[in-house]
């Protein structure tokens, strides 16, 4: 009998596992995939290391900073700053036709850029900054949380183009809702991206995952890969355990699931028809290019470029096409300020993310799927080089992952990267001892997911038995 069974060995499940194992619970993390990490995983191909999800970690904090989500999670998991050791971004840009705004981990740069490009808007931008909800207001209790972010932005800013430009990075890095954003989620992402900023460990997401797993196992936690949960066994209105894909049954006093809200409901014995209409719709393809030189030698020093090729930013699933090429994100993991003793990454890399339609990708037969990966890679790169130096003659290796890949790593409906638009912020379900953590509970991104695992473990699983 486990004290807590955790479904999913992504960031949130591992973080929750550490908290519970640290306080002497018998904990087991069950993961269907053959590797850890979920959306934020990694793989090796052709002698090179790749990350699945990671462009940048948001919520950057310098050593010694004690405030903010990153400092909080380091304390809660009993890590030191050196265990994550984030290198700071060089700088990022938001590029729309004819106008570009640069930003880095100091909000002053973005303020100056807005004052220079949109002089009439700077006071409005400052008042917007003052109106942001604090992290402590973000348990969903604030009546402002569910307001339309577009509506709030219009109260502060009169220039529609600036509103679109400010929304673009925040939606790309953490908005599960199409077209608009909850104001609470906007505030979380505004703090995470613009006020705290971007960083990356030299070795990418591996560093974080390996530290999480080592700590969890060191505390006596059990991690079982290739152990998918097919059912959550319910008796008399309580979860009593899980049934694995191979039929094995495990008993637990409580279950914490990072599988997603609808995905978890579908596993429950007592639910026959989960409301699939509430599933998230937004998924991506990622076109990765390995270059024969550092991107800076081609004149590209941006850490992240968020681009959009018209004045209006469209944040929605492409209905008629495999991908939407109008907007995208360009990332170069080379463009961080790594420590001198770490040096530079072994290869130049450019990663481009574009919106994609999960169903269309999954309908393709295998040969067409492989061909589509090639043509959509070409199309994504052709779209992106309108906003950066053309690197196409320097590509030595490529890889593409699609919504189908994301689904394979996460098992989330529709390969939805940021989960369902309606979050279950308190982590509660219809059963008194089944809880949610991860993407569908609340915060997204690496830091957000870890904080989600910690806070749900604290709130629901660490309370002394009544």
């Amino acid at each position: 009998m486990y004290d807590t069974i955790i479904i999913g060995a992504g960031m949130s499940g591992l973080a929750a596992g550490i908290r519970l194992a640290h306080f002497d619970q018998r904990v087991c993390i069950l993961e269907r995939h053959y590797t850890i990490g979920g959306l934020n995983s990694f793989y090796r191909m052709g002698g090179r290391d790749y990350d699945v999800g990671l462009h940048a970690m948001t919520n950057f904090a310098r050593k010694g900073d004690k405030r903010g989500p990153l400092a909080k999670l380091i304390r809660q998991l009993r890590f030191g700053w050196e265990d994550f050791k984030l290198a700071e971004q060089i700088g990022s840009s938001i590029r729309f036709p004819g106008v570009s705004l640069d930003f880095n981990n100091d909000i002053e740069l973005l303020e100056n850029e807005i004052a220079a490009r949109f002089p009439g808007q700077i006071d409005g931008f400052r008042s917007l900054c003052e109106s942001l909800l604090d992290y402590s207001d973000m348990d969903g209790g604030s009546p402002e949380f569910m307001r339309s972010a577009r509506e709030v932005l219009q109260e502060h800013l009169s220039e529609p183009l600036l509103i679109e430009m400010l929304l673009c990075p925040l939606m790309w890095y953490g908005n599960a809702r199409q077209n608009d954003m909850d104001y609470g989620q906007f505030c979380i992402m505004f703090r995470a991206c613009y006020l705290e900023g971007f960083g990356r460990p030299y070795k990418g997401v591996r560093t974080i995952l390996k530290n999480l797993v080592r700590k969890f196992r060191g505390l006596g936690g059990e991690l079982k890969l290739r152990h998918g949960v097919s059912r959550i066994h319910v008796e008399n209105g309580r979860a009593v355990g899980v049934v694995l894909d191979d039929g094995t049954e495990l008993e637990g006093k409580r279950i914490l699931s990072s599988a997603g809200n609808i995905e978890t409901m579908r596993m429950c014995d007592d639910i026959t028809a989960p409301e699939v209409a509430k599933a998230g719709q937004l998924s991506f393809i990622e076109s990765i290019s390995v270059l024969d030189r550092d991107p800076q030698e081609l004149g590209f020093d941006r850490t992240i470029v968020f681009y959009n090729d018209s004045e209006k930013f469209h944040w929605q699933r492409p209905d008629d096409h495999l991908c939407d090429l109008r907007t995208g994100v360009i990332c170069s993991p080379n463009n961080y300020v790594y420590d001198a003793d770490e040096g530079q990454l072994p290869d130049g890399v450019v990663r481009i993310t574009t919106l994609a339609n999960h169903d269309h990708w999954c309908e393709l037969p295998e040969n067409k799927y492989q061909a589509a990966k090639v043509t959509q890679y070409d199309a994504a790169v052709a779209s992106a080089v309108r906003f950066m130096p053309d690197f196409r003659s320097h590509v030595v290796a490529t890889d593409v992952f699609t919504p189908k890949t994301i689904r394979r790593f996460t098992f989330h409906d529709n390969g939805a990267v940021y989960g369902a638009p309606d979050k279950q912020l308190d982590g509660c379900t219809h059963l008194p001892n089944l809880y949610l953590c991860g993407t569908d509970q609340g915060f997204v991104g690496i830091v957000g997911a870890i904080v989600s695992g910690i806070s749900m473990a604290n709130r629901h699983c660490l309370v002394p038995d009544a």
Partner: protein
Amino acid sequence: MTPAEIRVEILDILEDISPDEDLNGLDDQKPFRDQLELDSMDFLDIVMELRKRHRVQIPEEDYGNLASMESTVTYLEPKMKDI
């Protein structure tokens, strides 16, 4: 445990929760909150660590006693004197 030993134990827990914090200048009379960057999650951790290390149970209504080092030691003395 004597009050002095309890104080050392609390310092050890604080060190564990927040390794970067300088605890040398801690004023026992002043609230922790005014001297250290501790939030409600950290206070929960003091309670949880005491339970883990010494099986000391602290009911939620008593959390207010953990405001400063002095009040914490006073509160814990009867609970930990036989440990």
